C-alpha cells in the first residue's frame, strides 16, 4: 500500500511532523513502513505557462519555437515535444529551476536560437513513467484550462508529496484503505479524524426499473448493491484525483475508471463499473460458474471456469469474475453513457480460489482476499456515485438495487486491566486503557477494571482477548514495556548425550584436519541414485520428489550426502582450490513407499570427501597426498574414540574403485563404506582423484550408547611378541590379523601390523607382513609357557589357513 501524505491530510491533521518521523511512529506501532518516496525532491521555479505561439524552429525540423506567458514574464522557449501546440497550458521550468536528478535549467542557444527555459513532461518533473497517463507519456503534460497562468506547478501536480510504502502483514487489511490509514495515524498522533460524507443527489428515476439483483450463493456473496448512473461524460479525471492515483501507483485512465479506483483506495472497497448498455440485460445474477463456462476478461484472455468460481452474470452468461476482474464485453469505454456500478461483499475464500486458478491478482482481489469492512460496502458505492455526479456529469438514479444478508455486527471482546497487566508485565491504569480505546476509536463499556470492547468491523482481525492485548500494548508502546526475566522455578539446561556426541564427533573430525560443510538436502535426478551406502540400497529406497520443484537441480530428497558434497569439491577444483578435506553431518530421507503416505525416516549420516595434497613441506621435498590409508585412519581414529568395533571389509561397490573400496561393518552389519571414487565417475564429475566415506550415524550412536563402558586399566604386565609371515600376494593383511585375534583370544589383547614389504627380499608372488602381538591377562601375570603355547597355535593356524610360513 502506497500512502500519499497529501491525500492523508484530507482526513487527519498530521501537523508539522516530518514524513520520516511519521514513518518511524507508524512502524513502531505496528505497520512497517518500508520506504518513503518523494515525488520530486526539488521543483522550484516551475510554473504554469500559456503557449501564445508555437512555430517551427528555423534551423531544426523537430524543434518548435514557442512564446510562453508565465504570468510575470514572457519567455521564448524551444521545445521538442511532438504534442506541443499553441493555446496549451504547460509546465515551464524557468532559468534557475532545478529539476529532479539535479538538472539545472539555464538560458541556452539551440541551433542559433535562444531558449529561456524548458517545457516539461511529467517524467521530467519526477513522476514515475508507469503511472503517467498514456497520452502524456511521449510528450509534455498539458494542464486543464482552469489552471492559473504563472501558478506554482509543485502544488498543482502534487510534486511536494511524500509517499509512504507500507509493508502490510496479513492481519492489517484495514490499512489497505486511506480511511483505515487515517484511523491508524489518528490513533498514533492522538488527532481527530474527518471522513467525507457520501452526499448524493438522486434523480426521480428508480434504479429498480433498470435492473434486478439475484444472488444464488449468499454464503459467498452476502451483499450485492447495484447503482445506475446515466448521462455520463467520459473524460479525464480532475487533476487532483489523477495526482493521488499516480502517487498511489495507479495510472489514470478516464473519469469513470479513475473514480472506481479512487474509491477503492479511499474506502478499501473494490467497485466495478459495467457499461449498462453493453450488459444487454436488466438482470444481475450472481452464481457459481458452470463447469467449462468461459469468459473473456478485461485483459482479453479467455478464461475457462469451474464451479469453484463465483461469477456475475447478466442472467445468461458471465460478465465478470466476482471480485477479481470484469469481462471485456461490458467494459466501460469512450462511448459509455450509462453505468451499472457494483459494490459487493465477496467472501475471501470465493475470491482466493479464483485468483489461485486464474493467476489474476488485482487491487480488488487482494482486498477481498484479506477481508473488507462490511459497513463500508454501500458507503463506498454512494461515494463513487457522488464523484461520478461531480466529475462525470452523471445522473444517479434513486435507490440501490440490492441483495443484502450481510452481517454488520461488531465483535465483542471482554478485557480486564489486571489480566492485561499480568500478561504484559506492566502497570497500565484504567485511565490509560480508556485513553487507548478512545485513540483507537473503539466503542466500549467500562465497569471498574472490566471493559466490554466492540471491535469495529474495519478491524476484522480483532476477535479475542489476545488481539485486544496487542492493541493496548502497541498503542501503549512496546518501548514502554519493562525488561524482566521469567520468575518461577528454573531448570538446568544441557545437551542430550546424542547432541553432545555430535559436537564431539565434529570436534574430532575438525581436529584431524577436515572442514565442515553444509550442502543442499535437495538434489537432482542425476545424483539421486548415486553413491548410496549398501545397507541403504539393499532395502530399495524410493526416491522422494517434490510435487512442484523450483528447478530440476533441487528436486529429490537426497539418499546420500556424497553427490552434493562432491559437487562442492568440483566447485572448488574449478576455482583452482584442489586440496580439500570435507565432511558433512546430516540426514538422508528414506522411504519404501512408492506414494508417500507418512514421513520418511530421517537417518543421520557422516560423509567425507578428500582430494589433493594433505600436507606439504616444500623445502624438504615432502608432500603427502590424500590416499586410502589416510582416509581410513581418520575413520579408525573416530571409531577408536567412540570405542566401537568397526571392521573394514574389502568390497566392490558401484561408482567406486574396485580395488580400493571397503564396507564398514559393525557386528556383521554394514554401516557404511569407504574408498576411492571410480575413475569413470571422477571423469564424469570432473573431479581429481577423490577418496570418500559414508557412515550410518544412527547405528554408530546406537552402538555407542550400548557399548561404551569403561574398563579398568589393566594391573598385570603385558608381553609383546613379534612375528613375520611370508604370504601369497593376494592374502589380505586384515584377514590374517583377524585370524590371529581369533586364535589368540582371550590372551592376545592387541594385534598391530608393523611392516609390510614385497619385492627383493620376498620370493616371487609373495609378500612379508610383520605382526606385533600384545599378550595380557586381566587377572594374572601370564607365564612363558602359556604364551608359547598360544603363539605356536597362532603360527600353525595362519600357516595352514593361508599357506604361509614364518620368515626366519
Amino acid at each position, binding site marked *: 500500500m502506497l500512502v500519499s501524505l497529501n491525500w492523508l491530510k484530507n482526513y487527519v491533521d498530521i501537523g508539522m511532523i516530518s514524513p520520516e518521523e511519521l514513518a*518511524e511512529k507508524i*512502524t513502531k*506501532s505496528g505497520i*512497517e513502513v518500508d520506504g518513503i518516496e518523494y515525488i520530486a525532491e526539488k521543483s522550484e521555479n516551475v510554473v504554469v505557462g500559456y503557449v501564445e505561439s508555437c512555430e517551427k524552429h528555423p534551423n531544426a525540423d523537430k524543434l518548435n519555437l514557442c512564446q510562453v506567458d508565465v504570468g510575470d514574464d514572457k519567455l521564448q522557449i524551444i521545445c521538442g515535444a511532438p504534442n506541443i501546440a499553441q493555446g496549451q497550458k504547460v509546465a515551464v521550468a524557468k532559468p534557475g529551476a532545478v529539476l529532479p536528478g539535479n538538472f539545472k535549467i539555464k538560458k541556452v542557444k539551440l541551433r542559433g536560437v535562444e531558449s529561456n527555459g524548458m517545457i516539461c513532461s511529467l517524467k521530467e518533473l519526477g513522476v514515475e513513467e508507469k503511472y503517467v497517463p498514456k497520452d502524456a507519456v511521449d510528450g509534455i503534460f498539458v494542464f486543464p484550462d482552469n489552471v492559473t497562468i504563472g501558478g506554482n506547478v509543485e502544488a498543482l501536480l502534487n510534486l511536494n508529496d511524500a509517499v509512504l510504502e507500507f509493508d502490510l*502483514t*496479513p492481519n492489517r487489511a484495514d490499512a489497505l484503505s486511506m480511511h483505515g490509514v487515517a484511523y491508524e495515524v489518528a490513533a498514533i498522533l492522538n488527532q481527530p479524524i474527518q471522513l467525507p460524507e457520501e452526499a448524493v443527489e438522486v434523480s426521480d428515476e428508480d434504479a429498480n426499473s433498470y435492473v434486478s439483483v439475484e444472488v444464488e450463493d449468499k454464503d459467498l456473496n452476502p451483499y450485492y448493491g447495484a447503482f445506475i448512473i446515466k448521462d455520463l461524460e467520459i473524460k479525464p479525471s480532475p487533476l487532483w484525483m489523477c495526482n493521488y492515483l499516480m502517487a498511489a501507483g495507479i495510472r489514470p485512465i478516464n473519469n469513470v475508471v479513475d473514480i472506481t479506483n479512487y474509491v477503492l483506495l479511499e474506502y478499501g472497497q473494490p467497485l466495478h463499473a459495467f457499461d449498462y448498455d453493453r450488459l444487454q440485460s436488466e438482470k444481475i445474477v450472481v452464481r457459481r460458474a458452470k463447469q467449462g463456462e468461459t469468459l473473456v476478461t478485461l485483459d482479453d484472455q479467455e478464461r475457462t471456469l469451474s464451479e469453484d468460481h463465483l461469477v456475475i452474470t447478466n442472467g445468461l452468461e458471465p460478465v465478470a469474475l466476482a471480485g477479481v476482474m470484469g469481462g471485456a464485453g461490458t467494459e466501460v469505454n469512450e462511448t459509455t453513457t450509462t453505468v451499472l456500478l457494483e459494490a459487493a461483499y465477496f467472501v475471501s475464500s470465493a475470491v*482466493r480460489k479464483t485468483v489461485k486458478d486464474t493467476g489474476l491478482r488485482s487491487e480488488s482481489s487482494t482486498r477481498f*482476499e484479506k477481508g473488507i469492512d462490511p459497513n463500508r460496502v454501500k458507503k463506498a458505492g454512494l461515494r463513487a456515485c457522488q464523484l461520478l455526479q461531480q466529475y462525470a456529469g452523471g445522473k444517479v438514479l434513486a435507490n440501490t438495487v440490492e441483495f443484502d444478508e450481510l452481517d454488520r455486527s461488531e465483535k465483542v471482546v471482554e478485557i480486564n486491566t489486571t489480566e492485561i497487566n*499480568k*500478561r*504484559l*508485565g506492566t502497570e497500565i491504569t484504567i485511565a490509560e486503557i480508556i485513553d487507548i480505546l478512545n485513540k483507537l476509536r473503539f466503542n466500549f463499556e467500562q465497569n471498574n477494571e472490566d471493559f466490554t470492547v466492540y471491535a469495529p468491523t474495519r478491524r476484522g482481525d480483532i476477535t*479475542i482477548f*489476545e488481539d485486544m*492485548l*496487542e492493541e493496548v500494548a*502497541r498503542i501503549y508502546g*512496546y518501548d514502554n514495556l*519493562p*525488561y524482566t*526475566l*521469567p*520468575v*518461577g*522455578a*528454573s*531448570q*538446568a*539446561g*544441557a*545437551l*542430550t548425550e546424542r*547432541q553432545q556426541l555430535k*559436537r564431539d564427533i*565434529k570436534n574430532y573430525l*575438525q581436529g584431524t*584436519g577436515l*572442514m*565442515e*560443510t*553444509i*550442502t543442499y*538436502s*535437495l538434489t537432482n535426478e542425476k545424483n539421486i541414485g548415486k553413491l548410496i551406502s549398501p545397507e541403504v540400497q539393499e532395502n530399495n529406497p524410493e526416491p522422494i*520428489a*517434490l510435487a512442484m520443484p*523450483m528447478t530440476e537441480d533441487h528436486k529429490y530428497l537426497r539418499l546420500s550426502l556424497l553427490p552434493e558434497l562432491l559437487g562442492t569439491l568440483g*566447485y*572448488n577444483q574449478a*576455482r583452482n*582450490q584442489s586440496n580439500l*578435506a*570435507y565432511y558433512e553431518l546430516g540426514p538422508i*530421507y528414506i522411504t519404501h513407499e512408492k506414494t*508417500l503416505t507418512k*514421513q*520418511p525416516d530421517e537417518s543421520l549420516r557422516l560423509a567425507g570427501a578428500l582430494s589433493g595434497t*594433505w*600436507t606439504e*613441506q616444500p623445502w624438504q621435498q615432502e608432500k603427502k597426498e590424500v590416499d586410502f590409508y589416510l582416509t581410513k585412519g581418520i575413520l579408525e581414529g573416530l571409531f577408536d574414540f567412540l570405542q566401537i568395533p568397526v571392521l573394514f571389509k574389502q568390497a566392490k561397490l558401484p561408482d567406486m574403485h574396485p580395488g580400493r573400496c571397503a564396507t564398514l561393518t559393525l557386528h556383521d552389519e554394514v554401516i557404511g563404506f569407504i574408498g576411492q571414487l571410480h575413475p569413470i565417475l571422477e571423469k564424469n564429475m570432473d573431479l581429481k582423484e577423490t577418496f570418500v566415506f559414508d557412515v550410518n550415524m544412527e547405528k554408530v550412536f546406537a552402538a555407542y550408547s550400548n557399548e561404551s563402558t569403561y574398563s579398568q586399566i589393566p594391573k598385570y604386565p603385558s608381553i609383546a611378541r613379534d612375528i613375520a609371515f611370508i604370504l601369497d600376494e593376494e592374502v589380505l593383511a586384515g584377514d590374517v590379523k583377524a585370524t590371529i585375534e581369533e586364535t589368540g583370544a582371550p590372551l592376545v589383547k592387541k594385534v598391530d601390523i608393523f611392516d609390510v614389504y614385497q619385492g627383493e627380499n620376498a620370493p616371487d608372488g609373495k609378500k612379508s607382513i610383520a605382526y606385533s602381538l600384545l599378550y595380557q591377562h586381566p587377572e594374572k601375570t601370564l607365564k612363558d609357557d602359556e604364551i608359547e603355547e598360544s603363539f605356536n597355535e597362532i603360527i600353525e593356524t595362519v600357516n595352514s589357513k593361508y599357506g604361509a610360513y614364518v620368515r626366519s
Partner: protein
Amino acid sequence: MKEQLEAIQSEALEKIDGTNNVKELQEIKVAYLGKKGSLTGVLRGMGKLSKEERPVVGEIANKVREAITDALEQKSEILEQEAMEKQLEAEAIDITLPGRQVKVGGPHLLTSIVEEIEDLFIGMGFEVREGPEVETDYYNFEALNLPKGHPARDMQDTFYLTNELLMRTHTSPVQARTMREFDGGKPVRMICPGKVYRRDTDDATHSHQFTQIEGLFVDENVRMSDLKGILDTFAKKMFGQERKIRLRPSYFPFTEPSVEMDISCKVCGGDGCSVCKGSGWIEILGAGMVHPNVLEMAGYDPEKYSGFAFGMGTERIAMLKYGVNDIRQFYTNDIRFLKQYHNA
C-alpha cells in the same frame, strides 16, 4: 709429610686450574688420586708414622683429597657445560624456514553460530530439541493456528511432497511437537535449530534451504516483558553489550501479540546509515506470545499457561555479524569462505 701433602694439593689445584679439556682432567685425576697417584703414594707411607702423628696427618690427607676432588668436579662441570654449549651451537637451525604444515579443519560458520546460540540459551535453562525436516501439514501449519485456506499460508511458499506432507517451512512445528510430547503437564524451555525450506529462487538474499533457530518458553505467569528481557539478554550477548533492542508489533498466526525485534545498528550506532537503510535499526527476529489456540491444540490450558516463542534465521545473523553478503556462500562451501570463518 704435612708439607709434602700441602705441596701436592697446591700443585694439583694449579694443574686443574690450568687445563681446558676433559681428557687432561681425567689424567690429572689419575695422577693424583689414582692407585698409582701421588696422593695415594704419600698416604701409603703413613704406616711409618707414629700413633700420635697418624690421625693428624690422616686428617690433613683427607682434606687434601677433598679439595682436589672438589676442584676436579667443579672443573669437570665447567668443561661439560662448555662442551654442551659448543655442541648446541653446532646444532643450530634456520628458524626462519617455514614449519611443517599441519592440516587444519574447522566448523561451518552456521554451526558456529548455532552452537553459540545453543550454549547461550542452555545457560538460561533451555534444552535443545530437534524435529523432522519432512513435516505433516498438521504440524507445520494447522497446529500453529494456520488452518487450510488461511491467508497467512501465502507468506511462506511451501515445497509440498504430497497434499499432507511437506518440507517444513520453519522450525516452529517443533514447538507443537514438544508441547504435545509434554502433554500440557510441565513448563517448556527449549530452542530448536534446524534446516527449513521455502519455494524461493536462490539469489544473494534468498535460499530455498536455510537454517532457523526457534525458541519456546511456556510456564505459568509468563509475561511479555519476560520475552523482552530474554531477547535483550540474547541480543547483548550475541552482538555486544552496547546494542539496544526495539520491539515492533508484527503478525504471526501462532503468536498474539506478535513482535519483530530490531537491534541498534552497529555501523552508525542508531543515527542511520546505508547498512540499516537510514533507520538506525536492523531487523533480527520475529517473536511473540504463544497464541491460545496453539497452546490449546498442543494440550496446554491457555487459562493456566502462557508463553513466548521466537524464531530467527541463522544465515541472517551470520550475515549481520560477519558481513557475509551472499546467502548462497553458505552452501557453495568455497574453501576460502569456510577457512575465513572456521574460528568464528
